[in-house]
């Protein structure tokens, strides 16, 4: 039973355009959401996060949007750059219930073409 779902295994975008990665969750107890980025042969690295009290968080070219009623979040990258090509994992936690434990999605491979 996957509580965090990334339904698009891959996404291909032209350099300079917007990349939109999507993530859905089923557990209404989740109150903190994160995106991690992973290059080949490396561990995932933290990218951006959002708490459930917000619906948007922005950090440079990266913006995460949270729609609690739809249990959906998305990561927008504008403009996309070839160096953004990586696997992106969505993760969620329920602080009261799980403490520091994160539940990850299966990941989306982003390819930015130059």
């Amino acid at each position, binding site marked *: 039973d996957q509580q965090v779902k990334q339904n698009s295994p891959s996404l291909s975008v032209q350099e300079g355009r917007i990349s939109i990665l999507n993530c859905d969750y089923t557990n209404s107890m989740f109150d903190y959401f994160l995106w991690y980025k992973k290059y080949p042969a490396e*561990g995932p690295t933290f990218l951006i996060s959002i708490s459930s009290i917000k619906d948007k968080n922005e950090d440079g070219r990266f913006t995460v949007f949270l729609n609690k009623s739809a249990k959906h979040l998305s990561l927008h990258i504008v403009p996309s750059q070839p160096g953004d090509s990586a696997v992106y994992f969505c993760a969620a936690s329920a602080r009261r219930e799980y403490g520091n434990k994160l539940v990850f999605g299966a990941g989306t491979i982003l390819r930015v073409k130059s």
Partner: protein
Amino acid sequence: DARVTQTPRHKVTEMGQEVTMRCQPILGHNTVFWYRQTMMQGLELLAYFRNRAPLDDSGMPKDRFSAEMPDATLATLKIQPSEPRDSAVYFCASGLPLASGRFSKETQYFGPGTRLLVL
């Protein structure tokens, strides 16, 4: 430059052999996680420790997997006996708990992973 280290980076072994993976968390981090990445499941949490005590190992096949923290600078994940279906990349991550009433910006730092192939 604080980072999580994992050894070995690659391991090829035969079915039935014991495999031991090691992780050195970032100094000062009191929470350690073990994840497994497969093509089908993405990142699965196997176990995690806080202050060296196991908090949750429900994701780990108990009959063959074991995780320990002999001291604050070393976490180990053992598979005995190993099976071909255990082939995956195993990540260790360390972090600090989220502060009560506040969220820290980043909760977990990942190591580079151990790529395991069981033949």
